[in-house]
């Protein structure tokens, strides 16, 4: 189905960002444009969800060039749901940024950069072409390089350098994989790749390219190759860190989900086995990191890593139930990680310090902030009826479904559950130390006022609670996403109707 709406989530932030670049001095206009861009992109994505649910996968051939020759944009259920989540999360982070980011950063193109970042993220979700995926990744990354170093404090610069060098190197590896793949199959359209690899069989060389791609996306998604993440996510201000935590690693996960369900699904033992091992190691290392540090920013950053591990763990099982759980958990993780970073940002905003040991008794002056944090901790741990529960339950049940024939499933389930405990321990420790205890900070001694900062948090919390309590309502959409991932023919028929 050709459909012009498919390009809107890409076009709206791009145009909004360009307009803001022209209106550089006019900060109120930039703020309005940011909010409007998120709202319109969100509305377009919701419309896409509805259309995909009723009519199947929607496509748009750019410039009218038919699919294997031109670049094609494809909106299936997975992409559309992630687009909606991206709009919600970026709206909340922008509302938070209005009060906290400071006029200095606003003057230096903060709002346009966020829009370009969203352009890159949405483009990665929508594109049906491997090289275009690389380009969208770069759009996103270049915006993130500038956002990470905007402000130019010492830690931002030193962490920014490492983050950039790692990502430039990973992008080179991505290009190498693209080059090899083009040499073997002679196409870069993902649907076409899927057909050709199914025809010639996934030989040793193709599998090797697939493993190279796992390394590339592992670097981008912090899947085991996560060593750059804790530093670079704790350097920027809370609003930027929340956008990064919610969107950047998730694009890497999306790329893994897309490529290893659509293209490389013939050698499950090698590729998905490797993914499972990396996911288990990620969860363990992330859990240890989260428990080890006494700095709020570091603890939260390691929680991002655990989330990545858990989603990929669900995906690596590659059964319908496990995929449903992985997609459900991925969306939950985007919402809740943004919320967690914003709430952590509130604490740091009030106290001016990220050290858990130096903060105590915040709850007497900020009860709402405290209880929001507590409910977020419960949601991330997976306490029903909040949103973490359904995803974890489905994934764990799916990993045990193999029975004693697949003992790996038991190991993974055990690690996954243990990590939930570590998430709860690491976050409750923040709650107990900073919110309970003797109040050492009177209202007039606070570094910043959180007036108005809690409304974006409440927005995210409302969406999160709806997502958890209304899991029944959302389930048909998630299920459709999982079904279409397991049946590449649906995707191929939508993109290349004349080939099949």
């Amino acid at each position, binding site marked *: 189905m050709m459909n012009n709406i498919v390009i809107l989530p890409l076009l709206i932030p791009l145009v909004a960002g360009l307009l803001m670049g022209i209106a550089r001095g006019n900060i109120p206009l930039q703020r309005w444009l940011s909010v409007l861009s998120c709202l319109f992109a969100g509305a377009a994505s919701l419309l896409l969800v509805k259309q995909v649910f009723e009519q199947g996968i929607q496509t748009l051939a750019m410039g009218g060039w038919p699919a294997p020759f031109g670049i094609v944009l494809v909106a299936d259920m997975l992409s559309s749901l992630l687009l909606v989540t991206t709009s919600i999360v970026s709206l909340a982070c922008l509302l938070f940024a209005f009060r906290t980011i400071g006029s200095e950063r606003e003057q230096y193109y903060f709002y346009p950069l966020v829009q370009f970042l969203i352009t890159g993220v949405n483009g990665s979700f929508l594109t049906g072409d491997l090289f275009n995926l690389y380009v969208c990744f*770069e759009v996103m990354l270049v915006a993130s390089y500038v956002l990470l170093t905007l402000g130019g404090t010492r830690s931002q610069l030193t962490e920014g350098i490492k983050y950039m060098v790692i990502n430039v190197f990973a992008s080179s590896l991505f290009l190498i994989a693209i080059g090899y793949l083009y040499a073997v199959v002679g196409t870069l359209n993902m649907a076409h790749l899927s057909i050709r690899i199914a025809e010639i069989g996934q030989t040793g060389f193709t599998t090797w390219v697939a493993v190279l791609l796992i390394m590339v996306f592992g670097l981008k998604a912090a899947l085991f190759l996560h060593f750059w993440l804790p530093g670079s996510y704790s350097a920027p201000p809370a609003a930027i860190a929340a956008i990064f935590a919610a969107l950047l690693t998730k694009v890497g996960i999306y790329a893994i989900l897309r490529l290893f369900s659509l293209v490389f699904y013939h050698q499950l033992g090698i590729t998905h086995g490797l993914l499972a091992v990396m996911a288990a190691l990620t969860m363990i290392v992330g859990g240890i990191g989260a428990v080890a540090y006494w700095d709020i920013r570091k603890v939260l950053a390691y929680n991002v890593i655990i989330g990545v591990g858990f989603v990929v763990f669900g995906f690596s099982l590659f059964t319908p139930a496990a995929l449903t759980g992985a997609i459900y958990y991925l969306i939950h993780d985007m919402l809740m990680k943004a919320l967690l970073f914003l709430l952590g940002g509130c604490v740091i905003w009030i106290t001016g310090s990220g050290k858990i040991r130096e903060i105590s008794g915040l709850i007497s002056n900020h009860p709402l902030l405290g209880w929001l944090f507590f409910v977020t901790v419960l949601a991330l741990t997976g306490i029903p009826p909040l949103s973490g529960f359904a995803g974890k339950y489905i994934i764990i049940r799916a990993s045990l479904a193999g029975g004693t024939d697949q003992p790996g499933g038991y190991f993974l389930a055990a690690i996954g559950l243990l990590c939930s405990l570590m998430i709860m321990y690491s976050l409750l420790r923040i709650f107990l130390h900073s919110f309970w205890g003797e109040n050492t900070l009177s209202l007039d001694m606070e570094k910043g006022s959180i007036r108005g900062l809690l409304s974006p948090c409440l927005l995210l919390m409302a969406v999160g609670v709806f997502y958890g309590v209304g899991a029944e309502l959302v389930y048909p959409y998630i299920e459709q996403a999982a079904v279409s991932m397991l049946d590449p023919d649906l995707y191929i028929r939508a993109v290349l109707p004349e080939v099949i």
Partner: protein
Amino acid sequence: METLMAVTIGILFSIGVYLLLSRTLLRIILGTSVIAYGVNLLIITMGGLNKGGAPILGGEASSYVDPLPQALILTAIVINFAVTAFLLVLAYRTYLVTGTDNIDELRGIDDE
């Protein structure tokens, strides 16, 4: 020809990795650039090194070269140019703020 290209790409990659593993910021940035050149050569080799007319504009010819790898490289060069330029500015700014270009001395924030 392909063998020669393979050896050249290999040499570029080894130089790039060697520079990337050194301690000076400028050398690291040069390393990423050299690797990027290696990648571009690799893509053009992967498209097949054959003689032929230019596609569409080349008129009548018995064979045509594949335009796609060239389009890919053009895009990759532009992106790499922009990223390297930003990386150089960032490195200079870091040098001004921290007073060093030694990556060992640029270790992260002291946490505990």
